[in-house]
């Protein structure tokens, strides 16, 4: 049995990191991630964790230090937001390519410019092709739970990929919620010891990381990465089940959904899923056949499970908190619409971009989306494929 405490998202993340007790943490502070690293530094200063804390001069160095540490056989973690993640970009690809199980908390914040410190998903969505497993969290509890599971997922022998766990900047990172914390020894038993089969520090079996890899083998190495991330869903589910045995909280590829008998469904990731859920509860009480599908694992995208879950649904609205400029909609929308392409009777799918730069999304707007879905389901006509919620004309 664990404890029930009041923690912000950043604090819950730092608490998970304390319990994980990584060998190395290399991080650079950036709003709204700052409190995570600040609190964790206190644990280091007080000698509560055995972690080697590397106070780097930039996020590029933070991820580089994590890559070096992980290659040397250490369990390495970091946390960042927005422009910090953008500065890591190059090394994010390298961590994934070298198959290093680095764990990173990404506190979602809008990318500059113009400069903005509030939540949207442009930062993590931008790295969606970097080869990392991406887990989106709705609230503080999920951020805590996902981070602990991420360690196991990343280090699983047949996966061996870095994992990022995201949660919404300020909305979650700075909001205090009720969080159930596991016992320290439960966490350390759950995650076990990290054993890198190819450690740079193992002088008895020397290994080279990062050689030049040209046209004769680079393609084969990319194919291996594809295989690893495609295998990961079964690992994620297995670890989700084990985590349920430990905590009582179950996590699958999709987040908890409300789809029983639903005809009109909203797909959302992050804290907005919670807002949608409360609207669903309200409207269902009035007898409306509305539902929610919450995104949890975005990379790899669980297309098959989502297509199955949406079978029989008449209209779907996908909420995207980021823009893919010049694309046919937001990143989640593109995935969902593509996942439904092979369905015999696919539902109508529309996209709403919302919440950019921390713009609030309210219950009214979500109710309006369900109204629009009702009209679409009725008329079978989509006037506007991509719309904008909460934008002033």
């Amino acid at each position, binding site marked *: 049995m664990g404890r029930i405490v009041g923690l912000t998202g950043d604090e819950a993340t730092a608490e998970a990191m304390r319990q994980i007790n990584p060998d190395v943490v290399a991080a650079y502070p950036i709003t709204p991630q700052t409190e995570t690293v600040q609190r964790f530094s206190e644990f280091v200063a007080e000698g509560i964790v055995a972690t080697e804390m590397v106070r780097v001069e930039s996020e590029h160095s933070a991820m580089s230090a994590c890559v070096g540490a992980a290659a040397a056989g250490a369990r390495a973690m970091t946390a960042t937001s927005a422009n910090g993640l953008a500065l890591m970009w190059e090394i994010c690809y390298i961590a994934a390519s070298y*198959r290093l199980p680095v764990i990173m908390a990404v506190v979602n914040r809008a990318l500059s410019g113009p400069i903005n410190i509030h939540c949207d998903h442009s930062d993590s969505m931008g790295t969606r092709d970097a080869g990392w497993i991406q887990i989106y969290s709705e609230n503080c509890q999920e951020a805590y739970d996902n981070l602990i599971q991420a360690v196991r997922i990343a280090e699983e022998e047949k996966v061996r990929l870095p994992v990022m766990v995201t949660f919404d900047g300020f909305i979650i990172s700075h909001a205090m919620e009720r969080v159930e914390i596991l016992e320290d020894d439960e966490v350390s038993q759950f995650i076990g010891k990290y054993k890198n089969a190819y450690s740079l520090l193992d002088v008895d079996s020397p290994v*080279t990381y990062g050689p030049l890899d040209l046209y004769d083998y680079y393609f084969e190495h990319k194919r*291996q990465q594809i295989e690893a991330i495609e295998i990961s869903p079964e690992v994620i589910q297995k670890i989700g089940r084990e985590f349920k045995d430990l905590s009582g909280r179950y996590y699958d590829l999709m987040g908890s959904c409300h789809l029983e008998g639903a005809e009109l469904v909203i797909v959302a990731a992050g804290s907005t899923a919670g807002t949608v859920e409360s609207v669903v509860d309200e409207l269902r009480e009035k007898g409306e056949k509305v539902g929610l599908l919450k995104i949890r694992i975005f990379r790899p995208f669980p297309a098959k499970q989502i297509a199955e879950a949406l079978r029989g649904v008449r209209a779907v609205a996908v909420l995207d908190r980021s823009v893919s400029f010049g694309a046919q909609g937001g990143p989640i929308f593109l995935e969902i619409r593509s996942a439904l392409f092979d369905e015999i009777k696919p539902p109508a799918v529309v996209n709403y971009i919302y919440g950019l730069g921390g713009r609030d999304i309210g219950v009214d707007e979500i109710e309006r989306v369900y109204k629009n879905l009702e009209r679409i389901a009725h008329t079978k006509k989509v006037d506007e494929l991509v719309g904008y919620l909460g934008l002033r004309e």
Partner: protein
Amino acid sequence: MKEKGWKDIPWGGLILEEGNAEEYKTGSWRTHRPVWDEKKCTHCLLCWVYCPDSSIIVKEEKFKQFDYDHCKGCGICSTQCPTKAIHMEEEGKFVIKTEGGK
């Protein structure tokens, strides 16, 4: 060497054998080849000191030969030789025996 498929190679481009850079024959990159004139050589071994590719083979403290499998033809040895015992000639004049790594 027959190239392996993606299922048969270590992940992430890892190289699990030490010192196997030698197997990669870089000699085929050469456009100019160093040629040695035994008569002028005083065996001072400055060429050995300067060669960035360890391609001067020395035996019993004397210049013996070039390692043409790895010499990239940079010409540093010929520039550094104090007695002008090494000069560069166009590679095309010689038969190319090795292809890089193949």
